[in-house]
C-alpha cells in the first residue's frame, strides 16, 4: 500500500483472522493502523497483495454489496445530517431491502441497548445530539444489519473517559451477543485489553507483534513495554 508520496504505508503485512475472533490493532499515530483497517473494507486498495474475506478476494466488482456485510465504525461518526436517528440506523437494512417493520424493530432494540430510548431519539436529527450520542448512533448504524465482521477505527477516541468507558461496555455487550468477528484499531492499550482477546502491534507499517492478550503483558518487546508503561497509573504520592 503506497501513500501519496510513493512510500509504503503498510508493507509485508500478513494477517489471518478467524471468524469469531476479536483483534485489537494498536500502534502509535501514523503506524499504519487506519490504513490496515481501510484495506479491509476496500476504502483503500493494496498496491500489491490481496485482501480475502470469507474466501473471496475483496475487489471492485460487488464491493458495495459486500460492504453491507461489514460493519465499519469510523473515528468521526459522520452521521447523515439530513436524516433522523432512525433513518441513519436504518441505512444498511434499507439497502438490503428488509421489510420496514423488521427495520423498526431491530433499530429500536439496538438503540435501547445503547441506552438511547427509541421513542425519545428516533425522530431527532444528528445536530441535536451530544458527541457521545452521535457516536452511539454511528455504532448502531454500523451494526444494524448484524454484520458478521466489524471494523472499528478508534471510535471512542474523541469522548470523555466516562462516556468512553460506558460505550466500551455496551459495545462489548453487543459484540458478545452476536456471532461477530472484530477488528478494533486503537492507540489505547487498556481499551485493547477490554475489547479484544488478541492484540496486534503495528509499527512503521509492519506487524511487530501478534499475541493473545494474556501473553501480551509478558512480552519482552521494547515497544510493548513502552505502551504498557504509558498506560500505567502513576503511584499516589
Amino acid at each position, binding site marked *: 500500500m503506497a501513500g501519496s508520496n510513493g512510500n509504503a504505508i503498510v508493507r509485508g503485512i500478513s494477517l489471518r483472522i478467524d471468524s469469531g475472533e476479536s483483534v485489537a490493532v494498536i500502534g502509535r499515530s501514523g503506524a499504519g493502523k487506519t490504513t490496515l483497517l481501510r484495506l479491509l473494507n476496500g*476504502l483503500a486498495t493494496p498496491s500489491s497483495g490481496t485482501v480475502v474475506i470469507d474466501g473471496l478476494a475483496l475487489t471492485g466488482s460487488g464491493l458495495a454489496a459486500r460492504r453491507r456485510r461489514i460493519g465499519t465504525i469510523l473515528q468521526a461518526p459522520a452521521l447523515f445530517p439530513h436524516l433522523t436517528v432512525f433513518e441513519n440506523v436504518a441505512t444498511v437494512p434499507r439497502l438490503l431491502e428488509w421489510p420496514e417493520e423488521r427495520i423498526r424493530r431491530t433499530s429500536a432494540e439496538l438503540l435501547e441497548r445503547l441506552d438511547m430510548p427509541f421513542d425519545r431519539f428516533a425522530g431527532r*436529527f444528528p445536530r441535536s445530539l451530544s458527541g457521545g450520542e452521535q457516536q452511539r448512533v454511528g455504532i448502531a448504524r454500523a451494526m444494524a444489519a448484524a454484520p458478521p465482521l466489524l471494523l472499528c477505527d478508534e471510535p471512542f477516541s474523541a469522548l470523555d473517559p466516562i462516556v468512553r468507558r460506558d460505550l466500551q461496555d455496551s459495545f462489548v455487550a453487543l459484540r458478545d451477543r452476536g456471532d461477530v468477528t472484530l477488528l478494533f484499531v486503537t492507540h489505547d492499550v487498556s481499551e485493547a485489553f477490554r475489547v479484544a482477546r488478541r492484540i496486534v502491534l503495528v509499527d512503521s507499517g509492519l506487524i511487530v507483534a501478534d499475541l493473545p492478550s494474556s501473553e501480551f503483558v509478558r512480552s519482552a518487546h521494547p515497544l510493548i513495554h513502552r505502551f504498557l508503561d504509558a498506560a500505567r497509573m502513576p503511584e499516589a504520592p
Partner: protein
Amino acid sequence: MNGLTSEIVHATAQHLLIVGVAIFVATSAGIPIGIACVRNRRSGRVVLRLIDMIQTIPSLALFGFLIPLPLIGGIGIRTAIVALILYSLLPVVRNTVTGIAGVDPLVVEAATALGMTERQRLMRIDLPLALPSIFGGIRIATVIAIGVATIAAAVGGGGLGTLIFRGVAMVDSTRILAGALPAAALAVAADLLFGALERLAARRLGV
C-alpha cells in the same frame, strides 16, 4: 380593463412563460451536467469553462447570433427561450457542482463504507445535501432570466420588453414603466420564493 392594462397582463404572462420554460429546461439539464462535472473532474472543468464563456456574451449579441441558426433560431419566442436557457445554465451547473463538492468527505466516506453504490450515494446523500446550493443556483438563474428576457423583445420574443422597447421608441415613460415595473416585481417575487426554498432546505440540514 383599458388597453394598456390588458397589454401589461398579456406581456407579463408571456414573460412568465418564456422564463418558466427556460428555467425548467436549464434546471433539468443543468443538474445532470453538474453531477457529470463532479464525477469527471477534468472534462468537468472544460464544460464549466464553456458555460462560463456563454455568460460573457452580451445578451443582445447572443440573441443576434441565434437568429440565423436553423431550428432553434429565427425571429420570435423560440430564440428568446434558447438564449435564456444558455444564460441560466451557468448558475444551476455551478451551484450543483459546489453543492455536491461541498458535502463533508467524512459523510461521503461513511456512505461508501456502509455499502452504498455511487448511484445510491448520489440520490440519498449527495443531492439532498446539495439541495440548498442548487436552489440558490435556480434562484440566481431565475432573477437574471427575468431581467434578460426584457431584451428578448428585440428579436420578437415578446414579453414585458415589448412595452419597454415601444416606450423607448415613443419616448413614453409611462409605457417604459408599464414594462419595467412588472419585470422588477417578478424578479423580486422569484428571489423571495426560491430564497425561501433555499432556507427551508438549509434549515432541514441544520446549517
